[in-house]
């Protein structure tokens, strides 16, 4: 029973919750939203055990939606999307709880939008019908636009519009490509359908058009990742977004780009995506992202912007892992997608908490606060270490798997990426030092309050995941492995023959 309704419930429940929040009293909005998101999380947890590691797509549900156009309500998850769904249901309650004191105006609207966004995000990860996928992709775009544009910082409108136009540009082209695929598959088989598997089967012989379709998907997803040079919306969006917006943006929305490559762009067009030239370009851009993102992060005066650029570097690792196409590198990429949501999410929470205390995100506004807020400083240290991939934390396992896997097929690329490990220490540790260490030389910082129980409740689950995945990632890796293997098989025949995978 559970297996049949769970995904639908996860899709519908937050949206229903949003309606309730909208009509609820202003002061109750956040509590209701927290309750709704906690229920969603509780509902999703059994999926962890119900999921059969050796099976493919599970929790399937498929009913016709608009039969005339071959549109279905088709959902399901495999080892790739399972963790993204769980990450979403895990991060949303924390984001709501983390916004309790941050959001002070129009609370109803804010929490309703967060819940709508939740439905949209889950929808993107579970959709097995391209029309449904596209609808969900747009559904999550709009709440995020308003979250940034209404509850954001001083420059919020510029950031929101930049975010919207960037994403829209990509997604419109993607829509064209989806339609092209739909008509192509229809013409070939006589069955016009947006069904994922239908299109997957028919996408093999697109000929010249495959190149353009891949290009359209690529642009949509590369913007989302974001890959250099499509990344400049990210620092602006992150800096201006309220904490919950940044957390969900980094934690979930960025993963839609890499997820899109794994689920759609590469399985549909393996011969384009893995063409040596395309492969060389993508891996080069991934490396540029790792090194460039790190170096630019190093010189940011704004802590939030620093984290934003560090995301460019982390996602560069993911892209490298996907395109290196070994079992370790792909699994590492999947794990880094989870890790980045946890660690960068925690970093954004912490910067938000600092901002609430001090009304500044500038690194130089702080200094020596470990003496005043030791608990916050300790947690910030642990999270930073996870972000720079210290062994024993989640960050290490993911990056190590990507690098050791990528080294088998692309030793030079892995070598350059490994140098990113040095850069990571060079951007995060100096910032950490300038915030929590050094002399306590600013009067405003002398009276800061340490973490409240509510804030601890936000951070402790994230810390627990950092250690869990760092020490015992096996339950994650086991559930991912068959899907990662299947992804590689679906793409691999189109690899140039020289590469031997281990």
């Amino acid at each position: 029973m559970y297996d049949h309704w769970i995904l639908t419930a996860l899709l519908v429940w937050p949206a229903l919750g949003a309606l309730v929040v909208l009509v609820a009293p202003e002061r109750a909005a956040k509590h209701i939203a927290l309750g709704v998101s906690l229920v969603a999380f509780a509902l999703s947890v059994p999926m962890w055990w119900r999921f059969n590691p050796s099976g493919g797509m599970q929790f399937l549900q498929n009913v016709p939606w608009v039969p005339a156009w071959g549109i279905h309500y088709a959902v399901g998850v495999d080892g790739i999307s399972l963790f993204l769904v769980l990450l979403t249901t895990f991060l949303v309650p924390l984001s709501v709880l983390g916004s309790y004191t941050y959001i002070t105006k129009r609370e109803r609207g804010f929490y309703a939008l967060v819940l709508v966004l939740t439905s949209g995000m889950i929808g993107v990860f579970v959709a097995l019908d391209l029309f449904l996928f596209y609808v969900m992709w747009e559904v999550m775009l709009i709440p995020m636009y308003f979250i940034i544009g209404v509850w954001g910082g001083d420059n919020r409108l510029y950031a929101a519009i930049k975010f919207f136009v960037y994403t829209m540009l990509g997604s419109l082209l993607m829509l064209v490509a989806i339609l092209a695929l739909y008509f192509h598959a229809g013409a070939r088989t006589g069955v016009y359908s947006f069904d994922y598997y239908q299109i997957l089967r028919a996408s093999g012989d697109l000929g010249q058009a495959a190149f353009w379709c891949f290009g359209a998907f690529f642009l949509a997803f590369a913007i989302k990742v974001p890959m250099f040079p499509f990344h400049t919306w990210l620092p602006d969006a992150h800096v201006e977004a309220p904490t919950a917006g940044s957390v969900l943006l980094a934690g979930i929305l960025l993963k839609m780009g890499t997820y899109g490559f794994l689920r759609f762009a590469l399985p549909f067009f393996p011969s384009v995506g893995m063409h040596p030239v395309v492969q060389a370009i993508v891996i080069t851009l991934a490396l540029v992202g790792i090194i460039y993102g790190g170096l630019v992060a190093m010189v940011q005066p704004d802590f939030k912007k620093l984290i934003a650029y560090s995301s460019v570097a982390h996602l560069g690792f993911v892209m490298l892992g996907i395109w290196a196409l070994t079992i370790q590198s792909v699994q590492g990429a999947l794990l880094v997608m989870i890790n980045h949501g946890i660690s960068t999410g925690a970093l954004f929470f912490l910067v938000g908490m600092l901002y609430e205390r001090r009304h500044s995100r500038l690194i130089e506004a702080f200094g020596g606060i470990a003496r005043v807020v030791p608990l916050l400083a300790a947690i910030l240290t642990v999270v930073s270490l996870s972000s720079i991939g210290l062994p024993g934390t989640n960050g290490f396992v993911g990056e190590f798997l990507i690098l050791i896997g990528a080294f088998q097929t692309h030793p030079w690329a892995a070598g350059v990426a490994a140098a990113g490990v040095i850069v990571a220490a060079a951007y995060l540790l100096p910032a950490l030092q300038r915030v929590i260490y050094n002399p306590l030389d600013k009067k405003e910082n002398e009276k800061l309050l340490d973490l409240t129980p509510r804030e601890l409740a936000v951070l402790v689950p994230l810390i627990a995941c950092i250690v869990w995945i760092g020490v015992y990632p096996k339950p994650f890796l086991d559930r991912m492995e068959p899907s990662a293997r299947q992804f590689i098989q679906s793409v691999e025949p189109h690899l140039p023959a020289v590469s031997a995978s281990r």
Partner: protein
Amino acid sequence: MTASAVPLIWLVPALPLAGFVVNGALVFAAPGAKRAVSAIGVGVLLLAFAVALAAVLGYAGAGGGAPEVFTYWSWMAVDKLQVAFALQVDPLSCVMILVVTGVGALIHVFSVGYMYEDPGYARYFAYLNLFVFFMLILVLGASFPVMFVGWEGVGLCSYLLIGFWFGEKANADAGKKAFVVNRIGDFGFLIAMFLIYQNVGSLDFNAVFAAAPAALAGVVTAVCLFLFLGCTGKSAQIPLYTWLPDAMAGPTPVSALIHAATMVTAGVYLVARCNVLFAMSPVASSVVAGVGALTALFAATIALQQWDIKKVLAYSTVSQLGYMFLGVGTGAYAAGIFHLATHAFFKALLFLGSGSVIHAMHHAYHATHSHEDAQDMRNMGGLKRWLPVTTVLMWVATLAIAGVPPLSGFFSKDEILGAAFARGQAQGIWYLYWAMGLAAALLTAFYMTRLMLYTFHGPNRTGEKESGHLHEAPWMMTGPLVVLGVLAAVGGALNVPAIVGGGARLERWLAPVTSAGAALLPAGEVSPGTEWTLLGVAVLIAAAGIVGAFRLLDLNALVPARSAPAETGFARVLARKWYVDEIYDAAIVRPVVWLSRRVLWQGVDQGAVDGAGVNGLARAARALGWLGSRLQTGEVGFYVVLFVAGVVVVLRAALR
């Protein structure tokens, strides 16, 4: 022995980890509970030492030799890559855990006295316990990745403890520098692991070493050089040594534990552990030995002209680590580990001794509200009057490091130099390494005697008022010093060479680990006559350094730091450490920051991508829109003209 203690090996790292957890909780729950903190912090170390000793005895009782691997859980397992969380007990890790927990326990006891007044007492012990945990993982790990957990973990603790007094920017800077520089080395370690896995398909020590001769033949030099890059970071060798002298910003017991006795020797341990790989590559071995010899000599020259007592010891440590690398690079793996152990005794003693000196100086200046430098030897002099125990014990350590027989350092250093000389028969370059090592030995004897003379002898320069407050440290601090003094004196007994009638016990004990590597090396035996000559030369060199210092240094000419003139000429170059920090800053740090800020961020990100690209497109779109809006003039005549023009164009196109 019925029930062996070897399976209890997991307790050895688990105890300090538990200490970290409890003390870490106390930092927030009850930072004032200093008695509880000391009991836990020191207690877990003493227990860990006891368990380690029992395990080693159990292991030796069962015959020893073959490695015993204990696997606890699967850590990273993807396809062929199978990394388990596993610990390994073998002769080498036995030696290391005894040094780490033994010397570690003594330093923990000392810390109780040294740090008791510090408001961060609980935090200090939490960090110290965590460090010991990671150090034990480093030496007990049964595979490269598990070792790497310890490898980076000790780096983290080093970072936290160097910057322990983070309220001063210099201290926090030093901690950060240590971490970032070490990360450069860790990059090498990572690449080496990738190469090994690519060629062997495993990262477990035993599997790798067994397969190495066949599977790694083509890349072994690269593997070794990348591993050694890691060593130059962790063990402070050229070119990555610059963080260690700065690391003296941490509390002095930390310098003794991390930056003298244990962590910085991790690189030596790594080479000894991978002796098969290094023995396979004469090039890499030569690089290890050469860099070691060069570092030994280079760091010794800097130590000649330092005034800060801890800085002298820091450069001395860099120099002595160079000796160890000369040893393991030469193929004298046991000799390298031997020097690692004796160095742990005498250098920990020297650091802790300097700690009790600084403790006394600090109290004196504190009592008189003076702001003089409590670590500058120019402010000391004649301290033997107030610190008799410390003076005697530090002389023992000084003579040991200088290589005076029959103290521990004499045997271990001589064995390294002897092995280097013997290897010269097969590869002449080793004669050069030997000569550099010998020259460094001369300088070592000189600068250590200088340190002793300036600190404890001659007239006192602390100040009239201040000297009245000088006093010997409490027994909590001198007790560990006495134990280390005994070890520094008789530690040579571990491995007395055959030529003077010893049994070379440590060498035989380590043979099961080192024999595989040793078998690949050119045989290097020297005649007993040559060996006696070498011994004689070593003793003469040590004596020359000590006597030279006594004769050349004028203790009465020294003035307190505040009125001391700046050095000139070559002395200035040495005092400024050959300007290496300045060169790195100008050649690497500044250019990278400039590139990142001016070119990448402001140039590419804000200028090209955002300015010209994104906002440029936006401007172009707006311009197009403006053009379009201009067309809507509202005048019918204009529309008609356009309409006709359009019709003409379309018709022409259609009629062609």
